[in-house]
């Protein structure tokens, strides 16, 4: 409301003679100030979040120190808290999500951008963007009723009979597992990878393709050797966006991961992720120490996300510099 009244006031004022340049400059300053405030709020919110999490975790930081990160027991009765199983579960499910999701997603994006007819590409892109809007609890339900029995009855026996000598694929399979968490995350991050990668690939200038084709390259050689490297920074960006989403995903993961805070090498074993633990225990946590431990878990997740983003930035910087040099 105040915005439109300012506009109205300005619109009603032009009869008063004032140097045009000065008026414009005033507008500039106002715009500068307003956008600066908007930009600053993001910084302030992040800083506040960091501060609140850091101070909220005071009790456990004092009691456990760094051993909070390496401890493997999570016992709300004896008030002994160690975050390692949760960190492990978070990282493993996210890694599994990327291992499954990146080849699928980038492959699909290449097909949609380079090979498919435009109508098909646009139609599929629309559906993929719809997938990104499905609430995570829906994915979780889907996972419980279809993915989990499928993994338990088909995938696990197959992997155990072929690659069963690896510790990764040993032990009893209940269905709910790190693998189930990773798989549902892969499905959930696919839309991000596909739609962003597709846009990036489509944005590669025509001249790049034409030059390559003129030199006698086949269409696939052009795609793989020219278009994809040109779009590398953007594709990596989409992967890290997907990773950030996977790290923080709560609902779908907690429904299928088994929620068992123990470290198991096998991907068929149940695990626990940081976000799932906070969502599960916070509402009924009564002791100060328990709450502090959960807040510190949140702080750890926050730090992991920041680290991942920093790595993504570095990676994009180095790859763009390299491709710029060649």
């Amino acid at each position, binding site marked *: 409301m105040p915005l439109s009244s300012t506009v109205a006031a300005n619109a009603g004022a032009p009869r008063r003679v004032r140097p045009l340049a000065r008026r414009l400059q005033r507008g500039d300053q106002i715009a500068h100030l307003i956008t600066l405030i908007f930009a600053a709020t993001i910084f302030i919110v992040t800083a506040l979040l960091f501060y609140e999490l850091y101070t909220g975790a005071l009790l456990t930081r004092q009691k456990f120190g760094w051993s909070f990160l390496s401890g493997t027991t999570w016992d*709300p*009765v004896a008030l002994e808290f160690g975050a390692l199983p949760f960190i492990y579960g978070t990282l493993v499910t996210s890694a599994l999500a990327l291992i499954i999701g990146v080849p699928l997603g980038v492959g699909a994006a290449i097909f949609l951008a380079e090979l498919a007819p435009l109508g098909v590409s646009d139609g599929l892109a629309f559906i993929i963007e719809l997938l990104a809007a499905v609430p995570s609890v829906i994915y979780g339900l889907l996972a419980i*009723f279809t993915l989990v029995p499928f993994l338990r009855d088909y995938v696990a026996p197959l992997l155990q009979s072929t690659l069963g000598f690896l510790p990764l694929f040993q032990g009893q399979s209940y269905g709910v597992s790190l693998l189930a968490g990773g798989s549902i995350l892969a499905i959930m991050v696919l839309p991000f990878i596909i739609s962003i990668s597709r846009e990036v690939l489509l944005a590669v200038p025509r001249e790049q393709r034409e030059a390559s084709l003129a030199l006698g390259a086949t269409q696939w050689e052009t795609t793989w050797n020219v278009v994809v490297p040109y779009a590398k920074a953007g594709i990596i960006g989409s992967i890290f966006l997907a990773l950030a989403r996977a790290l923080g995903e709560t609902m779908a993961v907690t429904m299928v991961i088994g*929620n068992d805070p123990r470290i198991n090498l096998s991907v068929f074993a*149940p695990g626990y992720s940081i976000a799932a633990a906070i969502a599960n225990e916070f509402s009924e946590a*009564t002791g100060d120490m328990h709450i502090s431990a959960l807040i510190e878990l949140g702080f750890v997740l926050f730090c992991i996300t920041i680290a991942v983003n920093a790595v993504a930035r570095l990676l994009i910087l180095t790859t763009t510099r390299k491709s710029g040099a060649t």
Partner: protein
Amino acid sequence: MKTLVSVGVLAFFCVSCADSERTQAEAPPADQVLINGAGATFPYPIYSKWFNEYHRKFPQIQINYQSIGSGGGIRQVTEGTVDFGATDGPMTDEQLKQAKTKILHFPTVLGAVVPAYNVPGVTQEIDFTPEALAGIFLGKITKWNDPELKNANAEVNLPDKNIVVIHRSDGSGTTYVWVDYLSKVSPEWKSKVGVNTSVNWPVGLGGKGNEGVAGLIKQTPNSIGYVELIYAIQNKMPYGKVRNSAGTPLKADLASVTAAAAGAVETMPSDFRVSITNAAGKDAYPVSSFTWLLIPSKIQDQAKKKVLKEFLQWMLTDGQNMVEALSYARLPKEVVAMEQKAIPEIE
């Protein structure tokens, strides 16, 4: 023109703002009483029914209840941000000490927790001894045809399969009641795991909420877990019998849960903070529990104090007649009488 439109819009907004402010300000006249409460999710259906009925009976009284969990209920009533709290597990001495005013516990209804399982090929009800349940959840009994289970279930054809234990992953009053029972029947559980709304489980998979546990049980062959009686009844889930302290195998129903509370009357402390798991009496279902309202003993606001006292009185009489329709077990009349004597403690 632009100016005119924006002035018009402005005027409209101002009028509507003023309008909504006025209606808000007018809403509570002098005798209107608004009471806020928060806490346990388990009794939420009956509480919202009670508060609705009470509002219908006395339109000037509005009681709001947010089911944010027992932990949140205890925290908020301790800090005085709500007029009353609600919890599935009684407050500890330490928690009571933190509160500014003394907090009183008033049992409202009873709930129970039942063992639910999915053993392919078994259609009969399995009869669980306390030793069997403790052994299974400690990870010591790992096969369905373990002698401890077989001896109690001679006519059931239990398979030679590994038991998959399923528990709640979210902090919950249901877990509290279940592990409270296990720690009463098993000294080893008491020393190794203990009692809380969430514990460090020796074995098993975690499901979120009753529906999460029920879903996992349904999906996992040879599994066993625990859910609230009310959830099992409403979803027609099969569940097993549990042997009570007198050795009778009992399938939980509303009457046997009320009997558990009646069995605990003799040992009932005056503040009602009592666990009635493994209660005495041959009809008492052993995994039962009260759920409590938490009410500060000193209430400054006279109107609120009066309403809360009257509501408690109504809840203990007329209110109790509504609980069984929603699958809660009602309070035994001995407990009702004790609570009515305790209401004047609110000052």
